[in-house]
């Protein structure tokens, strides 16, 4: 049976994940709400996950999929830390707008 990958073509997967990645990047660039910026980072990481899985299938090699698990775990840990920081920021200044964080400069 022809796999879904062969039907769609690896190139399209790459383009898709690149687009997803760019959407994430633009999200980070254009949104000022920290939560949404976290989500954008998640989108970027998931774009990579998608890419890894696609390549994994393409190469008929399981290690790519294993790597995805690592990535997901790491992303989870990252977001946990990020949210923790965000909470303490909220406690200190009462909002989570990233533009308020300009104490350190110069």
């Amino acid at each position, binding site marked *: 049976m022809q796999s879904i990958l062969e039907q769609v073509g690896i190139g399209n997967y790459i383009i898709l994940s690149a687009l997803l990645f760019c959407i994430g990047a633009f999200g980070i*660039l254009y949104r000022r709400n920290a939560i949404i910026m976290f989500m954008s980072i998640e989108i970027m990481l998931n774009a990579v996950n998608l890419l890894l899985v696609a390549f994994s299938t393409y190469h008929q090699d399981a290690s790519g999929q294993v790597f995805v698990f690592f990535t997901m775990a790491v992303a989870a840990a990252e977001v946990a830390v990020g949210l923790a920081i965000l909470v303490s920021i909220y406690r200190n200044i009462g909002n989570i707008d*990233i533009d308020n964080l*300009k*104490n350190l*400069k*110069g």
Partner: protein
Amino acid sequence: MNTTSLIVLLFAPLIGFLINVFFGRKMSKNLSGVVGTASVLLSFVITLLLFFSVKQPITLHLSEWFSIGKLAVNFDFVFDQLSILWLLFVTGIGTLIHIYSISYMHDDENMYKFFAYLNLFIFFMITLVAGSNLLIMFIGWEGVGLCSYLLIGFWYKNQDYNDAAKKAFIMNRIGDLGFLIGIFILGFATNTLEFSGIQQAIDVDGVVSTSGWYSIAAFCLFVGACGKSAQLPLYTWLPDAMAGPTPVSALIHAATMVTAGIFMITRMNFLFDIAPIVQNIIAVVGVTTALVAASIGLVQNDIKKVLAYSTVSQLGLMFLALGLGAYQVAVFHVITHAFFKACLFLGSGSVIHALHGEQDMRKMGGLRGSMKITYITFLIATLAIAGLPPFAGFWSKDEILLTAFHENKVLWVLATIASIMTAFYMFRLLYLTFFNEFRGTEEQKKHLHESPSLITFPLIVLAVLSALGGLISLPFGNSWLNHYLMPIFAHKEHAEHHLGATEYGLMAFAVLGALIGIGIAYNLYMKKKEVPTSDEVQGLHKVLSNKYYIDEIYMAIIVTPIYGLASFSKNFIEKYISKSVFGLGNVVSVLSIQGKKVQNGNVGFYLFAFVFSISAFLIYLFLIR
């Protein structure tokens, strides 16, 4: 003569100097004077012995000094006719002036220093005269300049005197640079600085390169002589140098040091003989100096200034003789001049001493009565310098005029005018000082007195010498001096003049000229009893009173521009260099401050820069490359 005595001759004054420097303060004033005098006297005695015993030049090798490249310089001295002759009157007159100074400087708290410096001067003068190579001569040359500096500024509390001392030193240094360059040229061309070596080298290839480097060297040496012997354009220090105590003026600035230039040129006669162009320059410079200085001397009112200008003028005449190749004539005039000029200076010192430091002739007068010995000696010396026979000055000056007449009539005319002027201003001096009424204060008048015998003794000796000095080289053939100096000169064609009608006529003319000068002076200052006024003078007189404005001109064209350059350098160039170097630092600093604005604390901006840079790299690496 054995080496020991030569060494004693050389170093006795130095030892006198050292004793006075280190122990002078503890010794009594008289003792330091005696030590100083004795050390010079010792040299004089040995010189006398030398004079009578030496027929062949003696060389004395003390030690090596240094050698660079191919050039080796040693502490070598040579005692030949020329140096012995010079030593004789240097140490002789030196002794007299030391004796004179014991009394003259007796009231000065720093008398021991005075004798120390005088001794040091004699030492350097001996070095200058006896050195057997150019560099040893240069030691003496600079050394006497130093002593001159120290002695002009002896009363160092007066800054004007210090200025004069400094001026003397620097003017001399200008000449010294010329001297040095001359040394370089000769050293490089001949690989030796020994006089004998240079002479040999010139004998070998002198004819081939008559002009060229040897001429330039000769010119450079002449520049050195100009500085030391106060010739145009470097003479202005000498009148100022009268700031020093009068014995100094007599010894250094009349009798000995200022003749060093003549000594040097005489020493190097073999070099100047092959550089006729330079000889012409020397003659012209000499006669011009004689005229200029004499004309300034006409209107000076300071007794020592008059004598100073007369010295410059007489030196000019000597240079004229040198320029004409008549070295022995120049030497003759040096010697007679040393006698009468020392006598004049010491006499003026005696006058000044009596008047407690007054030097302005307008405030003198009538001293004939109270200062008999001073007056008589002064009169003899004045007659000598004015060129009246049979006094020494007549014979030597006449020989110069004679030589000039034979070589170049224009020079002769100018030189004659200068001597007429000399006769005039010297008698002006004499009349103003010793004749008519006393014009000073009553206080001074009460204290007028003849000077003590320590002062009058040298005056008498010098007056006798001024009167009889001409005997050493009478023009009637068989001149002892010419004969004595014969071995020194390479070219002997100027040896003697045959006395014919022309010569006797010239002599008569010279005497007549002198009498004219004296007559005018008599007319003005004895008959009309004029006293120069301090009021504003006009026209030529004003120019002369202001010494042709030469000091002012030097100030305007040399000193002021240098100071201007200094200010310009300090305020502009230095700052500009500094700014341009550290301006870079400021630019960086400004960049740093501006850069802080980029680091604005905004994460959004940081991320934007991040993404932008990624894009830039990717575009560069994958599209542009």
